[in-house]
């Protein structure tokens, strides 16, 4: 029997997607999404969060989101809490999103003075069924740009539902041994890959 154990300092090479922030500007579609989610604010919280300050509603929201979107067991409440309250992994910031003082979503990030890796977003999909997820990503991109990061990494592209990550100005993806901005070729490859 195999057990998957959280381990720090492990990196996997994948078809990573990043935005060169010097080349990023908001598109008309980006602006439309931001207008749809008015009063969305972003706060960065340093990880790990001490048990005294941790709010269980965070992993409840995450568990409900991932169960609904991807199925049970993909991202459990206990694993989310472990990532946020211990130093077992390298992610070092929680991105906390609010709409008029109401917590509505989170993402987990690794960030240093040069790069930000935006990962594992989850949000209240019942109260905000559309636009919030994209608005959260756009706000993270703007934050990283305003804070002088060189790149923001958005995870990987492996299936058709990941294509939304390729809509941003300045985007490029890693293909085996080099970065490419040939988005048309990648889209064709992804759409021809059978879904699992």
């Amino acid at each position: 029997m195999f057990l998957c154990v959280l381990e720090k300092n492990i990196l996997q090479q994948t078809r990573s997607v990043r935005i060169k922030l010097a080349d990023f500007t908001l598109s008309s579609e980006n602006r439309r999404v931001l207008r749809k989610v008015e009063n969305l604010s972003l706060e960065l919280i340093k990880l790990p969060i001490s048990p005294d300050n941790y709010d269980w509603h965070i992993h409840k929201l995450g568990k409900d989101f991932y169960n609904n979107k991807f199925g049970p067991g993909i991202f459990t409440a206990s694993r989310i809490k472990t990532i946020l309250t211990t130093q077992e992994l390298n992610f070092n910031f929680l991105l906390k999103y609010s709409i008029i003082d109401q917590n509505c979503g989170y993402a987990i990030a690794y960030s240093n003075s040069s790069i930000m890796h935006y990962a594992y977003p989850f949000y209240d999909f019942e109260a905000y069924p559309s636009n919030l997820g994209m608005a959260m990503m756009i706000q993270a991109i703007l934050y990283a740009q305003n804070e002088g990061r060189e790149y923001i990494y958005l995870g990987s592209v492996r299936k058709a539902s990941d294509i939304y990550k390729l809509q941003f100005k300045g985007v490029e993806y890693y293909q085996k041994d080099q970065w490419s901005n040939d988005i048309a070729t990648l889209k064709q490859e992804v759409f021809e890959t059978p879904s699992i």
Partner: protein
Amino acid sequence: MNRMNSYINWNEVQIDPTSDAEINALYDQGYVFVRIGKKHTSAN
């Protein structure tokens, strides 16, 4: 239903990072931090 088990993984490294520059260099080679660690054999 979409599952998250189709992750593309060309290579995996475990590092003892001493600087942000080392991490940045790996990200520049397509590596990213992940939340799932190595698989271990259990006696159970």
